[in-house]
């Protein structure tokens, strides 16, 4: 993964490895430093993430059902 060459790359907080790229959309490069901050192996973090993701997926399915409903009623 190559480093972002964005000139506005800043160091955030006291951790010199923590880099924040403000132009998230404009910057296609992956930020290795950010990823190293993510606790990939921590079972508690993964469990918490799975719970949050479950709520997000629930929300999106219900939102989609709401949006699709008028079409369903017409079909029936």
């Amino acid at each position, binding site marked *: 993964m190559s480093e972002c060459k964005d000139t506005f790359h800043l160091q955030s907080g006291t951790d010199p490895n923590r880099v924040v*790229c403000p132009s998230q959309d404009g910057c296609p490069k992956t930020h290795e430093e950010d990823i190293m901050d*993510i606790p990939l192996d921590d079972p508690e973090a993964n469990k918490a993430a*799975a*719970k949050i993701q*479950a709520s997000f*997926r629930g*929300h999106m*399915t219900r939102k989609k059902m709401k949006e699709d409903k008028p079409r369903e009623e017409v079909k029936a």
Partner: protein
Amino acid sequence: MAPKKDAKAAPARKPSLQSAAPAPAPEPDVVAAPPALDLSKVKVEFTPDQHEDYKEAFGLFDRVGDSKVAYNQVADIMRALGQNPTNKEVRKVLGNPSDEDMAAKRLEFEAFLPMLQHIVNDPNKGTFDDYVEGLRVFDKEGNGTVMGAELRIVLGTLGEKMSEAEIDGLMQGQEDENGSINFEAFVKHIMSI
């Protein structure tokens, strides 16, 4: 259509009805399978109105016309009915099917009901506070916001990884002009539907 589709536990909620069948003796070089769930012990406690609503929702997912749904649709039906099971929990109530089974096997409504009841009864269901505190971990500045970009990475690399399309759908319109998200407002929004 009256939106009474949320599956709620009956008021007098009994203690967890999970009773695992004894796990098979694990082989030394194989990770023990999670204990099988005994759904016959689950008492289905939905009201007649709920039963009717759930049957209707179930029917919407039947694209074949055999009054059944595919295993891989069960998670979405439960979500449509107001639940937020993890994919792992759904696979567990389905009896830990293989990927082929998930795509090929079909489930009838009466078999679906105890599965739904089990999910509804789950004492570990996520609450508003759970989600907020989960996101607060990523609030580096302690100001109630998380960076959208960081949340995208978390959602795509931890837990039950979300695809880019799923993440885009979720985050649409949520980030402010600085790319930040107020996570309490975000969670309220998520829980409102």
